[in-house]
């Protein structure tokens, strides 16, 4: 009885997190915001759902390792695929809603920022070359 409650809670929590992740994928404004929903929320929901499935098959007397394999694989590959998608988006110069940070907002070292190439015009947006 207790384990049925735990399994039902795992299924409900997992599928709710999957739905929240897809809702974030649909609703956010920007690709770089949209990347967070599937990467964090959907992966966590899949972990909860697969743990519930493992408990169900243990309580049914047919334990198997496939759910744990899928859980580990998803938790390992979600950051890697998100990193690759972000690299592809930066390569394609995908439009970002928020402005990039101003040059004077990041002068933690004022003596280098004073002779930097961007100190002459503070309104100029930083290009890709400034960061490298």
């Amino acid at each position, binding site marked *: 009885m207790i384990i*049925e*409650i735990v*399994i*039902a*809670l795992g*299924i*409900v929590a*997992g*599928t*709710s997190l*999957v*739905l929240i*992740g*897809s*809702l974030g*994928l*649909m609703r956010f404004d920007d*690709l770089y915001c*949209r*990347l967070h*929903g*599937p990467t964090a929320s*959907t*992966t966590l*929901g*899949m972990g909860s*759902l*697969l743990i*519930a*499935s493992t408990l*169900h*098959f243990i309580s*049914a007397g*047919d334990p*198997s390792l*496939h*759910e744990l*394999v*899928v859980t580990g*694989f*998803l938790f390992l*590959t979600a950051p*890697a*695929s998100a990193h*690759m*998608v972000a*690299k*592809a*988006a930066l*390569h*394609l110069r*995908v*439009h970002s809603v928020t402005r990039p940070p101003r040059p004077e907002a990041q002068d933690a070292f004022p003596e280098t920022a004073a002779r930097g190439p961007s100190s002459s015009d503070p309104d100029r947006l930083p290009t890709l070359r400034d960061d490298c």
Partner: protein
Amino acid sequence: MIAAALLFGFGAVSVSLLLCLYRVIAGPDLPDRIVALDTLYINGIALLVLVGISFNDSVYFESAVLIAMMGFVSTVAWCKHVIRGTIID
């Protein structure tokens, strides 16, 4: 109790599949479509897990493992093709 949770789960995963399909069709850029297809196969794995619990049959997890591996490889291959122009260089 598990039956009611499974009913809720089927509904939620189906709605999230539709949301991902919207982003695949209407995504303004190519990386949007890559992210949406990535989320779509993860939602497919969730649906397979729910079907496996519902039918009390563990043979569906074999296909879940295969979908997880092939989906990751296809996402990385598409991103490599966008970045480099080739996949294996």
